């Protein structure tokens, strides 16, 4: 196995989307895309960058994934969920964390973005971060 697998530029160029959930919004029809797109389904190429990070998110559904891929062995099982940002209707498939009890997810359908380590790339590679979601803490 190589000592590291993630080339730094491949990670660095995603910092905006990974850390701030930068999406693209069509200036013609208002559709929003995450991951960002260069061209909208309406045909318009005039896309502006917006941040989903401050938005309000609902959990649509989730699954508990036990058979994880190798980067996530130490975290298993992981919760994989679909969340929807309410003002744009953008849906993201993502990791849900800080779940004390599965029933929390059934009850607490509102979730919030949280900045977390995603994986550590071997012994000499970089530590990769990203935005995950957790059941919203009230109060």
């Amino acid at each position, binding site marked *: 196995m190589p000592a590291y697998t993630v080339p730094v530029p491949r990670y660095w160029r995603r910092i905006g989307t990974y850390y701030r959930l930068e999406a693209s919004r069509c200036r013609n029809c208002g559709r929003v895309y995450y991951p960002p797109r260069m061209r909208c389904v309406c045909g318009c190429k005039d896309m502006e960058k917006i941040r989903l990070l401050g938005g309000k998110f609902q959990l649509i559904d989730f699954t508990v994934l036990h*058979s994880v891929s190798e980067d996530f062995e130490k975290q298993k099982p992981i919760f994989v969920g679909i969340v929807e940002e309410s003002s744009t209707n953008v*849906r993201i498939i993502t990791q849900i964390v800080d779940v004390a009890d599965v029933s929390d997810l059934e009850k607490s359908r509102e979730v919030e973005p949280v900045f977390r380590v995603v994986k550590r790339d071997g012994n000499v590679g970089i530590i990769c971060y990203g935005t995950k979601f957790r059941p919203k803490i009230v109060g």
Partner: protein
Amino acid sequence: MRKVYVLSYSLMTAGRHYDKGLRELAGKVLLDALERSGSYDVDMIVLASALSDVVEEQLLASSIVCEYLSLENVPNIRVELGDASSGAALRYAYELVRTGAVDKVAVICADKIADLVSTRANKVLSYLCDSTYESYLGVTQAAQAALMTRAYMRRFDYRYEDIAMWSVKMHEHAQNNPHAAMRRKISVKDIMSSEVVSDPIRLFDTAVPLDGASCIVLSSEPGREFKIVLEYSSTACCNASLCMRPEIDRLYTLERFRDLASKFSPTLFELCDKFSIFGILGLEALGLSERGKAPRAIAEGMFDPGSKVVVNASGGLKCMGYTVGACGGYLTCCLIMELLQDKLNVGEHSVGLVCDVAGIDRASNVLIFRRES
């Protein structure tokens, strides 16, 4: 446009072929199929493989396979469309023969995955999702299939046991298939007591990743032994993430082939069932079952061998193994065997349909074969 015939085919039972690399797997089925075609002369080799570079660190894999059989001057190419590479390669070969670009082409469908330990295999298979935005956060194909399953169960008020009946049926069918890797009967109880892959999907309800290879030779002229025409081949795509679709429990790509059923009247089907939900949604997408009713139809045995319409008499990918880019090759070879009533005798049928599905419904290829007397 010319007619396209199946000249010959060959397949090896999928398994953990630790003693064979891609060249040995692909070389063996190519050799067998060419010998059965009556000649080593072939105008083109098309290799369907999703993983030759990832698992074997080999680009130009199709050239290496040709070298292994000393086909030193035969043009070749590799086709990759994830786990629907086989259908895409067959379609490409079909177009080559149909348009007159070549007369005889061998399509090899081969992949190796069993060399990898399970967590590494899970990672490689997660490349079927969006690597930058989905796999990066640990999302896998199984997790997305689990979300599809949950949505379907909730919408139509099914229990997981109802969904898992697909697997039970596949194991029943596989008992008659000499090329099925899994031929032992299983019960819903066996499935429910196996470990959870991604809630609610359990291990015994998934197609096991295995190494496999098959070969189908297409030609503008029929062979002496049988006459099977590849009558239609097409691809439909849905280039969007699962979560952005209006309903996540539908196979939109396959729905676009629904009118083929009335046009060609196939009565034999081999559908992609890498997860049970794909088999169920495939039945509904193609109009073989009403939306929301497939699990009941399956349990009643409506698609068992001997029925008017027979689906996955082979035991499907569930029992033949999930051979990634090679999946469609197995479904195709079995459909040909069923049409010929060769080893897989499921009754008299003359038209059959095969489909494979790439990733979470990003693409599907449909092939329609007709046996001529």
